[in-house]
């Protein structure tokens, strides 16, 4: 992709944010209807994810995403049907055939590695992938995303340190949505920004407005190019606000005020993106209507498809634990 975004590309990025939003919203509804067991949301984080994804070479570069990265994954070719299948735990779900939780991703065509429930483990995987890229002399990069709370984990520091020492082509993107479940960022780190942690580890640390998809894209373009050209890793903090509760299992009214959430919604990345496109005359009312209609169709289709799809056969619960059949396993 070129550094200069074409109008089509800008609209495409907005579309991805919108599609992710509508799909995410529907997952909440399905959970409230008792149709699915769990949902963890990326609402409010679409701009950072889409901006970062569009700076990558899809299917060439590697990604170690985290559980809020629905918009990132959709931008990399994971589809609404895939997501819906994962919500229902259906056999055709591409990450694991219904074995792992929704939003833990893993999508081979996008070189996206599965996320883990114990957080921050993906950062060292990203360092290892970066090491392999370097050893193989390839011109690829790794994007490793994470929430700000997870940057408290020792393993995260170990991984970033590793990447910095060896000048590995990894971009560590912290999606700072201000909360780790109920714990606000001030109880998670003493520095004002996760990007400030870079100075102690010896790599470039940047901050970007995580509600501005084009700003994220521009900064990511620069950092990806640097990594691809042997310039080493970077740490980028994209700051936004987690508009929903942590997951379908918690009620955020117990730890933050409605006023705070309402205030943050004024910087909803979808609103920000819409204003930007409108200011440039790139988004008409008709465009928006057709995008909304298309998103609704795609989401409806995905849910209908997943509902009709078969569950795994019970016996599929026995494998694959090992590469080959192991007696008395």
């Amino acid at each position: 992709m070129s550094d200069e975004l074409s109008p089509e590309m800008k609209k495409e990025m907005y579309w991805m944010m919108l599609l992710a939003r509508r799909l995410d919203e529907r997952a909440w509804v399905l959970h409230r209807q008792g149709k699915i067991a769990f949902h963890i949301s990326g609402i409010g984080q679409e701009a950072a994810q889409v901006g970062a994804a569009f700076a990558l070479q899809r299917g060439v570069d590697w990604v170690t995403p985290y559980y809020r990265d629905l918009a990132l994954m959709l931008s990399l070719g994971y589809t609404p049907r895939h997501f819906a299948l994962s919500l229902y735990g259906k056999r055709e779900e591409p990450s694991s055939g219904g074995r792992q939780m929704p939003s833990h991703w893993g999508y081979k065509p996008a070189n996206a590695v599965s996320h883990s429930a114990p957080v921050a483990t993906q950062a060292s995987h990203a360092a290892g992938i970066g090491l392999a890229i370097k050893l193989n002399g390839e011109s690829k990069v790794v994007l490793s995303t994470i929430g700000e709370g997870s940057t408290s984990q020792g393993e995260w520091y170990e991984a970033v340190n590793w990447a910095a020492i060896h000048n590995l082509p990894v971009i560590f993107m912290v999606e700072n949505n201000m909360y780790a479940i109920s714990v606000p960022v001030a109880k998670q780190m003493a520095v004002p920004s996760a990007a400030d942690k870079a100075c102690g580890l010896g790599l470039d640390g940047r901050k970007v407005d995580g509600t501005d998809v084009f700003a994220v894209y521009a900064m990511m373009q620069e950092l990806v190019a640097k990594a691809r050209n042997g310039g080493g890793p970077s740490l980028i903090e994209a700051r936004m606000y987690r508009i929903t509760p942590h997951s379908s299992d918690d009620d955020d009214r117990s730890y933050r005020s409605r006023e705070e959430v309402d205030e943050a919604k004024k910087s909803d990345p979808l609103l920000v993106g819409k204003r930007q496109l409108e200011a440039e005359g790139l988004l008409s009312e008709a465009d928006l209507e057709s995008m909304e209609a298309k998103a609704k169709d795609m989401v409806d289709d995905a849910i209908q498809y997943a509902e009709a799809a078969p569950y795994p056969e019970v016996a599929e619960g026995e494998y694959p634990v090992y590469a080959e059949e192991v007696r008395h396993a």
Partner: protein
Amino acid sequence: MTMREITYREAIREAMSIEMRKDTSVFLMGEDVGVFGGVWGVSEGMLGEFGAERVRDTPITEAAIIGAGLGAAMVGMRPIVEIMFGDFLMCAGDQIVNQVAKARFMSGGKANVPLVIRVTTGAPGSAAAQHSQSPESWFMNVPGIKIVCPATPADAKGLLLTALRGQDPVMFYEHKMLYGESGAVPEEDFTVPFGQAAVVREGSDVTVIAVGIMVKKALEAAEALAKEGISLEVIDPRTLVPLDRETLIRSVAKTGRVVIAHEAHERGGPGAEIAAVLASDAVEYLDGPVLRVAARNVPLPYSPVLENYVLPDAADIIKAVRSFWAQKGA
């Protein structure tokens, strides 16, 4: 004692609160335990009573939570740390195995480690491979830690108070699907000693040694089988380390048949140790094989059809019990 019905969750909160009122060296720390009251709601309201110095939200740092708990314990505090999911214990694996468990031994007895690690166990339903494990036996192979698995609200309170008054580190496994279960619990301060199994239901034909939530399932199985004239004796070890061998052996001596039930995977689970104890010390009483009812040896899946297949339930206990006679009759 004055009995009343409270939940397992409330019983644990009550034990913590009793001890925190009595002993200012006791404090609670963990992810989301403060304002939010813990993701399982166990510490709800405790921030209001004890304040933010003693009910502390931590960063997401399992290793530092347990490491800092050890540090504070060694200098005279009595920390309670909460780990949201047992599955995340391995983020703190070295702290538990090499630091917490060994501090007393490696200091020649100079270090006291009155640290209570409260941790959840078991499958809450479609939470998959990294939120559903029953990691009790992971640490049974590590000398220096006591391992507690309460199955009822009363035991949760009594065992936790014992843990909080001891001098050694305790891993206290709280089953997620028991938090909402109610039961009669004494209102007063009372303790349940470690290393003392409970005979939960007396019976004569088959002993079911059940751990954690499987106690409830074993009682369901006992109820169902009683209608067929099969009498189950249900034994809850309550603590896996130390293990009350005598009560287990006494029961097997009476019934001659034993089924061990736990939600952990079958291979290397708590049942492997219990079976070995029976094989060495009770083999003369056994009229049949030592059977285990446990999760299959595959990771826990998300999809409900797969999860139900992998997890053990009351029907599996019934099937195992019936197999003693099926084999003879065949």
